[in-house]
């Protein structure tokens, strides 16, 4: 029982960056803006989030800074693709490069070279009164850091927003057929800006999760491909909030399980255990392939006076 409790706790802990970055990617994508700068944005979120937490002494301010940095990247992506109609993929890659560069440059300029880089206090666990004392479920679900709760709440909130509100319907319409949305008075530009900016903020926050929970400090390139992975998991989740949540949960579960198996010992070389989450994701995709959907206008720019054939 203890083993299971422990396992599930760790799974919830691990899924957060994928959930946040996945939802951020999804939100922009739902208006047609396909963000591919996650890796760079997460790095900047991690770097800036860490630096601000360190110098202000407030991890909350760090999170705000990470979200602002992500939002700023989102704004840039929206501006270049919506106002200037530049290719989304290229802009995304350019922003990715800028993010990679800035993330290491910032600490270098601000902190300089030290033998002992500064450390921040990582996010404390917030045990929810009463709920956390329920046996088994309490420790699994209700004794986590705030971002674990936030990632679930944000996922459910996004689901509600997209499928149960008027603005959500409008937002989705922009990613499916912007000309239709436009012809009915839905402001396609505004929707694209907001979704990309807020999506960017979520991606920035997902990057900050890494120093704030895993390491207490920023290390060069610490995102290690998780930004690209978030894109894959967004496809895995069919660009829909709840499947993205469950997809991230599934991926993390396999990942944590693989580490666990390694410790216990297995006949498989550990590298094959490390491949497991990726391969399992593909296998699940094979089983559920009929349900995966992509917003029809994903990656395309909309220009009112241009016919989009």
């Amino acid at each position: 029982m203890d083993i299971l409790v422990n396992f599930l706790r760790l799974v919830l802990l691990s899924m957060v960056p994928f959930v946040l970055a996945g939802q951020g990617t999804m939100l922009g994508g739902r208006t047609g803006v396909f963000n591919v700068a996650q890796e760079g944005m997460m790095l900047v979120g991690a770097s800036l989030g860490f630096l601000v937490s360190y110098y202000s002494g407030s991890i909350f301010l760090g999170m705000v800074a990470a979200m602002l940095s992500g939002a700023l990247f989102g704004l840039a992506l929206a501006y270049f693709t919506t106002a200037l109609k530049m290719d989304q993929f290229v802009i995304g890659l350019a922003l990715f490069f800028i993010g990679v560069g800035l993330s290491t440059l910032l600490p270098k300029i601000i902190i300089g070279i030290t033998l002992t880089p500064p450390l921040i206090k990582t996010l404390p666990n917030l045990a929810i009164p009463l709920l956390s004392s329920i046996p088994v479920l309490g420790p699994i679900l209700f004794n986590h850091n705030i971002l674990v709760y936030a990632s679930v709440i944000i996922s459910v909130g996004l689901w509600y927003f997209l499928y149960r509100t008027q603005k959500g319907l409008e937002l989705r319409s922009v990613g499916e057929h912007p000309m239709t949305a436009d012809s009915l008075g839905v402001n396609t530009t505004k929707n694209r800006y907001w979704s990309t900016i807020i999506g960017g903020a979520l991606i920035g926050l997902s990057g900050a999760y890494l120093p704030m929970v895993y390491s207490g400090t920023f290390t060069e390139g610490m995102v290690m491909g998780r930004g690209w992975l978030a894109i894959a998991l967004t496809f895995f989740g069919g660009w829909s909030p709840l499947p993205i949540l469950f997809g991230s949960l599934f991926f993390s579960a396999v990942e944590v399980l693989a580490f666990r198996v390694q410790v216990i010992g297995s006949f498989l070389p550990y590298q094959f255990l490390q491949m497991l989450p990726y391969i399992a994701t593909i296998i699940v995709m094979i089983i559920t392939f009929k349900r995966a959907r992509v917003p029809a206008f994903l990656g395309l720019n909309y220009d009112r006076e241009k016919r989009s054939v």
Partner: protein
Amino acid sequence: MDNQTILELTNVRKVFGQTVALDSVTFSLRRAEIHGLLGGNGAGKTTLMNILYGLYRKDEGEILHKGKKINIQGPKDAIRQGIGMVHQHFLQIGNFTVLENIILGTDIDNRYTMKTQNEEKKILDLCQRFGLDVDLNTTIDTLTVGTRQKVEILKALYRGVDILILDEPTTNLTPQEVDALFESLRVMVNDGLSIVFITHKLREVLSVCDRITVLREGKNITTLDRKDASEEVFVRAMVGDKMDIENSIYFATDQRSSFVNRLDQAAAFEMSSVSFINKDGIPRLKDVSLNIHSGEIVGVSGVAGNGQRELAEIVTGVIPVSHGKILLDSKDITHTNNQELFKTGIAYIPEDRLHDGFLPKANVAQNLILGHHRNQPYSDGNFINWKTVFKETREQIKEYNIKTSGPEDVGGNLSGGNIQRVLIARAFSMPSQLLVAHNPTRGLDIPSMDFVYQKMLKRREEGYATLLISEDLDELIRICDRIAVIYRGEILGILPRSEFDKYAIGRLMSGIKEENPATEEKALP
């Protein structure tokens, strides 16, 4: 301006790059009238209305609403002024429900729960009032073109418009649906709505409009009351002096006698007891048997969605035959794939030109050889001879009057009508034993339609077979040797030219087999 006028556009000018789409155009709309807007391809009808609706920005000119100058920056402003528009190409979201498509962009009573019973009730009321009925909870993708048309109109009505623009609403409709639409329009006008009705079809304009404005090449030519004008006047206004009306097939009154019966010729194409069952297990074609003789044009008539598309795709090898047998030139092609068929003698003009027939991201030359790209002289099977292709393309651009900057022009730059011309050029440029043409003249203006008819008749003279699937009954009657009527995937009857009769065909189209023709005939008005 008389006091009846609710909307006026004055001296509107719009330039796209090099083209002057509208040059000082003036247009006025009265309360409770149906105002026809007539003109050939590229006359500027859509552009003018898009400006009114806020989709395009005008370069010059003014818009007056009830005598007051208004500023329309986008569709939102237009909607606020009570203007609604049904677009030439449907603007609908395929994976949304009908309800969602209709209420999108409007304020919903329960906007934070999306409990939409109020909205549904309002829509159902509208449906009843104007005789438009649709199921609100079905997904758009699953609907027929006719139903989608209704959704499009409901969208406008739902917004409480008092000015409704319909851009070529009838191109996608069957005669019955056109009648139903016109009835609805009358109800709306009686309700006080004003309607702008864009079309190429004179007869429709004359039957339903109160006033008619004709545009040609971006200029207004004339505005007339229906009662003041004859067909002849509008034809002249629309086509200018470029078209030879005397010798046109479109305006020909009676050519029937000049047709020589081809039934004695060998059958070029034979289809016996062919069935097709789709992926969901639903039979879409049932036991279809059809022969086409050399030099014959066989038409297929039917209400859209009765299996015409499947028929076209079965013949061209796009989808596999479930049962039955098909012979082309006495050769069994039942299971020949479309790559082979295009190589050996079939040409195809698909119905949905943008999706099924055109490569918007490729250039005009690349578009012209699609399907024939493995054939001489375009290719030796391995390499494409671009020099020949470009030469041919240039010739065809001239012959088919395609408005484009040249073979290297990107397909996406072409207008709808010119895209259709490319498809037609492609189909006629290669010799083919059988041409399958599905709604080949949809969206074409009269001179262009006439051109296509000439081409088809030339094929006929040369002894080639043609299968013409069309929802335009006039068109079929004009040039076919025989007409087969399809209903729910079955051929209900095949009529020879001598027995062509609009009403008889219409009955078959609605599934009524002729048993007592005489009495039935009398029952009709």
